[in-house]
């Protein structure tokens, strides 16, 4: 069973990668959709390749699923499954450990590779170590590092939609509101190109002024280091790294970023990495396919101009 993350209308893209990961186990695959007014979403999801069943819990109190209620549902029906997984996002990271505890099984976070026979590779110690783990739990509960698994398609499927009755709300918590950053740029987590700025940008104004033209011309999302976020140059939501978002775009451009462990954690799976830094010995160059030793305040505007010409 896969816990599906969505906004009521669309599945989050990473769900398709999680389904790809589930296929490795070779059994039948059920997709769990918890929400309010998700008929249409369930219909769409039934077309996903490889999915056998859509299990739908549709109720007013599930519009913004709270961990307590979601875990209650999943652990109840989860008894009958051999594998329960989800993409490693904040949404699932809130819920799945609680599910695992209710089922009295251990959980494995952020799986990079499934090597068959309930054996997994994951990273630990801030990404500096890879551990191979074998699980003898009767129910395998884990989250997957989406970029490491192939996404399934959305055309061949013909899954059965099963409507389940949601249990009464537990009323342990209530949802108040959410604030998402509005942007015309692609969301960081799915962007094909990401450019990230560090503390060296110097101010919120400069951060914007220097990075926006390049991002616009590349159709890129903008990310930031924690140092830039802490200094107030960029909003928290765009922090890339261990504490923030993990990205794996086609092209990642690190601009005035030193290359701290915790930042590398969030971008090292990018296909091509470019670093622009005025210190030739900056750590980031060890992780970059192409390094340019230059003052960012000159190089970035130049790049923005050259990109717009091509």
């Amino acid at each position: 069973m896969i816990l599906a993350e969505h906004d009521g209308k669309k599945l989050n893209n990473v769900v398709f990668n999680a389904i790809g990961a589930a296929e490795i186990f070779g059994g039948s695959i059920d997709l769990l959709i918890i929400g309010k007014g998700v008929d249409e979403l369930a219909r769409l999801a039934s077309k996903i390749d490889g999915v056998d069943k859509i299990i739908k819990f549709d109720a007013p109190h599930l519009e913004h699923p709270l961990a307590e209620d979601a875990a209650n549902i999943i652990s109840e029906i989860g008894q009958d499954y051999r594998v329960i997984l989800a993409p490693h996002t904040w949404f699932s990271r809130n819920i799945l450990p609680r599910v695992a505890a209710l089922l009295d099984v251990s959980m494995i976070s952020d799986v990079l590779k499934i090597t068959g026979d309930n054996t997994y590779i994951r990273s630990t110690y801030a990404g500096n170590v890879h551990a191979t783990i074998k699980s003898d739990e009767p129910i395998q509960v884990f989250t997957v590092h989406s970029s490491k698994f192939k996404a399934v398609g959305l055309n061949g499927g013909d899954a059965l939609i099963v409507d389940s009755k949601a249990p009464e709300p537990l009323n342990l918590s209530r949802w108040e509101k959410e604030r998402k950053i509005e942007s015309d740029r692609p969301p960081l987590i799915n962007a094909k190109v990401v450019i990230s700025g560090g503390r060296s940008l110097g101010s919120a104004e400069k951060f914007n002024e220097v990075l926006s033209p390049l991002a616009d011309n590349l159709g890129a999302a903008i990310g930031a280091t924690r140092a830039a976020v802490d200094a107030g140059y960029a909003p928290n939501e765009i922090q890339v790294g261990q504490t923030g978002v993990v990205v794996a775009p086609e092209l990642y451009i690190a601009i005035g970023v030193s290359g701290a462990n915790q930042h590398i954690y969030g971008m090292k799976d990018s296909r091509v990495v470019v670093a622009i830094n005025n210190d030739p010995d900056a750590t980031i160059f060890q992780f970059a396919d192409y390094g340019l030793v230059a003052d960012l305040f000159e190089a970035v505007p130049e790049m923005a101009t050259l990109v717009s010409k091509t």
Partner: protein
Amino acid sequence: MKILVAIKRVQDYNIKVQPKSDGSDVDIEGVKMGVNPFDENAIEEAIRLKEKGVVSEIVGVSIGSSLNQDVLRQGLAMGVDKAILVETDKVLQPLAIAKLIKKVVEKEKPDLILFGKLALDSDAGQTGQMLAGLLNCSQGTFASSVEIKGTEVFITREIDGGTESIVTKLPVVLTADLRLNEPRFVKLPDLMMARKKSIETIKADDLGVDVSSKLKTINVSEPPQRKEGIKVKDIKELLQKLNDIEGIKI
């Protein structure tokens, strides 16, 4: 109101931990250790709530070997009132940690339980949520702000692409994001004072919890490195390489 804070002892965040050459485990010998950064935020938040007069007592708990006394003393020096060490030499999974802390919760009966959102060694981010599940109580994870009003806790949580506000009932397990606060520095005199305070030690074996794990680490290794790249001399060359070699059309 009483708070319990979970304090884990982990490697310093600047240190790149290496696997042992035989791949049996990580090489932690001689590595600088300290309080898990997110747990420092949890401790700081507890102290601030006490300073506001909402909280009367802060209990710190750490699970591990006798070496964990140092992180508990760090907590005491910051302002934790009482420290408990649940002693074991075993390396435990989050589920086992959560079960042990549940025993401490049953004894101490805290109203608020504060965790870090992630431990730098395990990279798991599970223990707080697991404890909340075992206690069947509310949870507020990845908290960047916490406010207590009567019997309700108002929490701002970090979520994908933004933040979310929820209100939970007490008792509640919270997990701290780095953004929750700026932990205070420990002053040397406070650390000296903390050395003199006693730490209540409970043997994990005496708590009657099955801590055996069905997860076995078969081996640890260094992650595959990205191959060392090349330096380009200017933006023109960069764009040309991206285009010609990588097929990125920009």
